[in-house]
């Protein structure tokens, strides 16, 4: 470590009543506190959705199992998918963007602090509204509680005839409410990055994390808006007698698919691009080398942003589009692999010849590289219409997107949590517990999701409640479930590490990793104003300039 402790002479910390502390957090407009709220809220939903996944895996552990009823099983996979994407993935990444972007660009806060608070509370209340369905939907109509139409909510499953009661309405309204929150946050991130940079921080000197979050926020605006529009249309269908998605009355089920996936596929990139940003900040620091090919990394990200907006219908190869559409979406899906491959080469180029430090954040990054590459390759396989038509709606697809979202996003988020936890709390997460967490999670992940490809190739459909024995799926499903529990144990260790290190962790100092970006030039945790004096930067690595004045 470059420094061990920060002493702040003359500062007395008064104990406050917990009500005052709670009031401060509820009324805060500080980007750092809102960032922490986003992260805590997302971690809560990570646990909730994780428990749902475990119940799903218990149900599928053995053939002819009846741990839960078929109805509950449908609700579990719907709530698991919806929660992980909308109430865990997006919020935790928005949390990091909120916390880090102003610090990294030398700003005192986000461009619109009050909009920031409003956006967070909308997102949070959307999640709570979704889970209120467990009480509200059943209590009023007795027609099933939690939503059960899958996280895509395809028509006509969402029509009143197939989804009586209010479970689908809760799903729609929760996503609508949180969708406005997401749009507000995206506007804020864009405005902050474009307008609030400190003197000297030109666009070509901006940290890659800021660049990538700029692209992500632009994609959120373009992707969430169609979903919000579709949710309004669904509400009109269900409440006002509309027929947008009612095939019996001239509507189109395909229309919903297009609306959903024009959101749904860019959403994958909305989730993964911030993780690319984590990689781009963490790998250079622990390789002790500058990022390889900064301009190309920016260009590749912008390119991914554009191309990924034109690949959505590869989720629909099997629904009967014409051959020209299939051809177009196959080609664009293949094309998006090119800039993504460039990024992977650049991260490897950064590590190549570097003095790599295998700290916990770096371990998660290395695993991310391998796993995301593998996920990308199965994605290219599924991007081919011919291949997809054989394996769509099978467990191969489930394995592929979990490889992306767990192997990519969750590993990226863990890397970021280990890396920036010292900045957020002033304490370093315990390295031994961290490595135990990493290795257990890695083993559990590969046991679950490597093997999950096999039942898919053997023809096991996704979303089935149970299955017949003797199809070659039995042992594999058992091992997949065991892997899920190993991951759960790893997450418990991580949670314990978060708590223990918060109280008893080693003091971090302002710059525990000997890093180069601006957030490490202020205390840990930073004061409310971030920087006493607005920094003036002259390069992409302002702390390098201070640490190596001979370079200037």
């Amino acid at each position, binding site marked *: *470590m*470059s*420094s061990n402790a*920060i*002493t*702040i002479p*003359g*500062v007395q910390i008064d104990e406050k009543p917990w009500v005052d502390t709670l009031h*401060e957090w*509820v*009324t*805060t*407009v*500080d980007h750092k506190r809102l960032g922490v709220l986003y992260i805590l809220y997302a971690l809560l939903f990570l646990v909730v959705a994780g428990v749902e996944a475990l119940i799903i895996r218990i149900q599928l552990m053995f053939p002819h199992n009846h741990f839960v009823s078929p109805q509950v099983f449908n609700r579990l996979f719907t709530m698991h998918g919806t929660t992980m994407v909308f109430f865990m993935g997006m919020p935790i990444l928005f949390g990091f963007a909120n916390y880090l972007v102003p610090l990294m660009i030398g700003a*005192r806060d986000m461009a619109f*602090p*009050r909009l920031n*608070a*409003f956006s967070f*509370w*909308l997102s*949070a*209340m*959307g999640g709570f*509204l979704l889970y*209120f369905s467990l009480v*509200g*939907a059943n209590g*009023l109509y007795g027609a099933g509680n939690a939503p059960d139409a899958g996280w895509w909510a395809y028509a006509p499953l969402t029509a009143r005839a197939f989804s009586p009661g209010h479970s689908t*309405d*809760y799903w729609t*309204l929760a996503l*609508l*409410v949180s969708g406005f*929150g997401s749009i507000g946050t995206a506007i804020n991130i864009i405005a902050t990055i474009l307008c609030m940079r400190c003197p000297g921080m030109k666009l070509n000197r901006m940290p890659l994390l800021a660049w990538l979050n700029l692209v992500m926020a632009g994609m959120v605006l373009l992707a969430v808006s169609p979903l919000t529009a579709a949710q309004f249309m669904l*509400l009109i269908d269900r409440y006002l007698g509309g027929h947008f998605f009612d095939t019996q009355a001239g509507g189109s089920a395909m229309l919903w698919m297009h609306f959903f996936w024009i959101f749904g596929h860019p959403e994958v990139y909305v989730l993964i691009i911030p993780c690319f940003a984590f990689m781009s900040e963490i790998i250079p620091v622990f390789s002790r080398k500058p990022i390889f090919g900064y301009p190309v990394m920016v260009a590749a990200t912008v390119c991914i942003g554009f191309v990924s907006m034109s690949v959505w219908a590869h989720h629909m190869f099997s629904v009967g589009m014409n*051959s020209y559409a*299939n*051809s177009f979406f196959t*080609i664009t899906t293949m094309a998006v692999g090119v800039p993504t491959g460039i990024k992977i080469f650049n991260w490897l180029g950064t590590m190549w010849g570097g003095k790599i430090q295998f700290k916990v954040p770096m371990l998660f990054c290395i695993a991310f590289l391998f796993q995301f590459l593998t996920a990308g390759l199965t994605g290219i396989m599924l991007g*081919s*219409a*011919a*291949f997809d038509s054989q394996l769509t709606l099978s467990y191969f697809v489930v394995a592929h997107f979990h490889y992306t979202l767990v192997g990519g996003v969750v590993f990226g988020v863990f890397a970021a949590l280990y890396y920036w936890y010292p900045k957020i709390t002033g304490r370093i997460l315990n390295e031994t517990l961290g490595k135990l967490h990493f290795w257990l999670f890695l083993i559990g992940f590969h046991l679950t999701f490597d093997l999950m490809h096999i039942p898919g190739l053997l023809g096991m459909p996704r979303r089935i409640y149970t299955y017949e024995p003797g199809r070659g799926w039995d042992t594999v499903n058992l091992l997949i479930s065991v892997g899920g529990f190993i991951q759960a144990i790893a997450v418990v260790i991580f949670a314990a590490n978060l708590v223990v290190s918060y109280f008893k962790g080693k003091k971090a100092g302002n*710059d525990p990793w*000997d890093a180069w970006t601006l957030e490490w*030039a*202020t*205390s840990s945790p930073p*004061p*409310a*104003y971030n920087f*006493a*004096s607005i920094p003036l930067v002259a390069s992409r690595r302002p*702390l390098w300039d*201070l*640490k*190596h*004045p001979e*370079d200037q």
Partner: protein
Amino acid sequence: MATLLTTEPMSESPGAPREIEVPAPTAWPFVLAFGFTLLAAGLVTTITVSVFGAVLALAGCIGWFREVFPHEHEEVVPVLPEDIRITTERSIVERLPIPAYRRAWLPVHTYPISAGVKGGWAGAVAMAILACAYGVLKAGSVWYPINLLAAVVYAESLKLGPAQLYSFHADTFAIALVLHGLVSTLVGVLYGAMLPMFARRPIVLGGLIGPVLWSGLLYTILGFLNPLLASHIDWPWFIASQVAFGIVAGIVVTKQSRKPTRENLPFLMRAGIEAPGIIPPRENGEDGQ
């Protein structure tokens, strides 16, 4: 041993303020968000919830407006003394020996993009001639390889019966033509970018070894990418056409003249704008070129 570069607390540096204004905390965004959520929740509970939500949302809007109009509410935060240490344990830095006025840009010379495009097109012609020759000599129809190629992206090709594979189909032909042209152009551009990196025997590496490796990769995945082609392919002819592409594209690319890379020039110069002061003068006083 850490090297201490600066120990001066930032708050004590000259010009640092003693106190800073930051946006004041406010509950109105929370109230508005809660009101908005209740407004929506009323649709699935009872109208009373929506009415309550609407009242909260209205109160939230008014409160928020009053928070920022006519003047934004801010609170003054005293600047805390901080002990910021900008230090490094790694004072030894390994650097490439390059001129002081400029960083290293490698490679120094490369082929223009047009060279890659020309190479790709020439390779495409060579490959097409061999593929058509195969069609005529081995299969008895020039359209046979074209119909197989289109099946990579065109599902209608998969539906062609054995007899139809030997006849002309306009849509299949158009898609195969575009696909062949597009992929050949992209691979040609890739050759243009890569061949300067293989200074010795570029044709052997780019024209022979590369296509053989590529063919090996295709051998393993062709069943997924193009089941029709995989079931009808003649591997010796296929590999020969790949090698023909590589050699012809490589020869055409290497025949083009190389150009200095221009990444080290500012954007204005790359855009063709000539004006004094664009490049900082060198130590001997001359303007940069």
